[in-house]
């Protein structure tokens, strides 16, 4: 997976800024995408390109259980969110609905990867290659069940052992 990084160097990006509450009545995915990140970055919709990644700090996606949040990001073209840590329900929603990959990174990757860097995520070796800076970082491997659900393509395609 190769793409460019949109960086938000802060912690606790909550679901209210990812998709504000007034849009919770909207269930049209394309319409949700128009308002993605509106509470933090009104330019996000014009900025995000197909295949991009978001990079952020701790506790990404805290707050609501609204699946609108990963849906709005996914339908903006975002393939993965790289963060120091994730809030529980956002993480589940991203994986179980097969919307995007929530990838836990370490401090090195967080500090080093800059806005606009092109990176390549290698899920086999759990490595992130920064093609712009010619550097490599480790990502936290997915836990057993998460890895299996991702591989299956979402919870409904996953067959428990």
């Amino acid at each position, binding site marked *: 997976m190769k793409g460019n990084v949109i960086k938000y160097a802060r912690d606790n990006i909550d679901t209210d800024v990812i998709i504000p509450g007034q849009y919770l009545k909207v269930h049209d995915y394309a319409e949700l995408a128009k308002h993605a990140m509106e509470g933090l970055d009104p330019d996000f919709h014009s900025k995000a390109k197909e295949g991009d990644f978001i990079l952020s700090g701790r506790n990404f996606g805290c707050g609501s259980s*609204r699946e609108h949040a990963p849906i709005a990001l996914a339908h903006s073209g975002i393939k993965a969110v790289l963060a120091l840590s994730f809030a529980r329900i956002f993480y589940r929603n991203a994986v179980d609905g097969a919307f995007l990959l929530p990838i836990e990174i370490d401090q090195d990757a967080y500090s080093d990867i800059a806005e606009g860097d092109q990176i390549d995520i290698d899920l086999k070796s759990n490595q992130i290659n920064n093609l712009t800076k010619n550097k490599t970082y480790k990502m936290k491997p997915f836990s057993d*069940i998460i890895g299996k659900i991702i591989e299956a393509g979402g919870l409904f395609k996953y067959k428990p052992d």
Partner: protein
Amino acid sequence: MNITEKILARASGRQRVAPDDVIFANVDKVMVHDVSGPGVIKVFDKLKKQGINVDKLWDPTKVWVAEDHFVPSADKMSAENVVKLSNFTKNYGIEKHFKYGMGQYGICHTLSHEEALVLPGEVYVGGDSHTNTTGALGSFACGLGHTDVAYVLLNGKIWFKVPQTLYFKLNGKLPDHVMAKDFILKIIGDISTEGGAYKTMQFGGSGISEMSVESRLTMCNMTTEAGAKNGIVEPDQKVVDYLTSRGAKNITLVHGDADAEYEKIYEYEGSEMEPLVAKPFSPENITIVREAPSVELDKSYIGSCTGAKYEDLEAAAKILKGRTVKIRTEILPASISIYKRAMENGLLKIFLDAGVTVGPPTCGACCGAHMGVLAKDEICISTTNRNFPGRMGHVESQTYLSSPLVAAASAVTGKITDPRDLK
């Protein structure tokens, strides 16, 4: 095993579970509302296209539906979502649908206990993050997204990683001017909004035994703000009496073992607690009310699943009786049954005489949707549970979170006020 582990062991058909085990747990009850319901319907439509059979739910008698976020409908889209929800319950034979404008309705996390829809020891999931609230009855209660809820509706089970448990022990009663809301804000301030992530937050000790069931609901409600998977209190006679008076039968209490393990134990002395507020823009950003910034408030909001239960309204009435509000103040009882009690016991008159607007049960303004959202630069004190940027309206508005006592005292002065300091 502790209570959460015992419930999950039973639900997954195992003798024992331990933290970090991945299990599939059978679900006893599931809730959808007017936000998650249309989302679930959308997932069903997607599955249908993939050839997955969505004609029948695993057990419609275990499903219940609330209308709360976008009622009364302010626009066509909200109205259409409510119609979608009605069609859904009709098509799938779901009988427990609490419809706006037809008797008892209200916020889902209030109906769960007001209507005895969830019992101790049950696994209860809902399409809303504050489903954690109902853990106060001694159930495993947890919020999920649309895909997960759709999975439960079709399969009757869902995967969980068994959480580590943080135990919060309260020694002794909270003083009269301090409410459960102050105590949970204190805890979130101590452990941060990420401190409970992927974990259970369990509450116990003599202070929790002394607490009413409604106060315990406030505690468990805001475990979501610490990122917790679930909040829980071991059930006692108060819970049994509460649910029995609401028609519940066959209540079986689950308790943790004497040698139950907890990842960490935190202890608090009730007598040392003070009224607190959480400043914008995080529930962890707490300060003692007496040290809060001296801001001119525009509004006081007493509502939501966190702060509009009957005792919350009683607390507000205690302050507002014989006084008048200085700022725009809205009180929205969390359910019609609470609204009626407030009417019968004279609370509504106290509110109206004080100049307050009393509205219908709705999540509207709490989530910035409708019915009283904030304009740019407006500052609100609120009994709700979140104060993220834009949470209650304009992204440049500000919300301070507090107990109903503090929100009511502040309504009277127009500044953030400790109820003890009211003249």
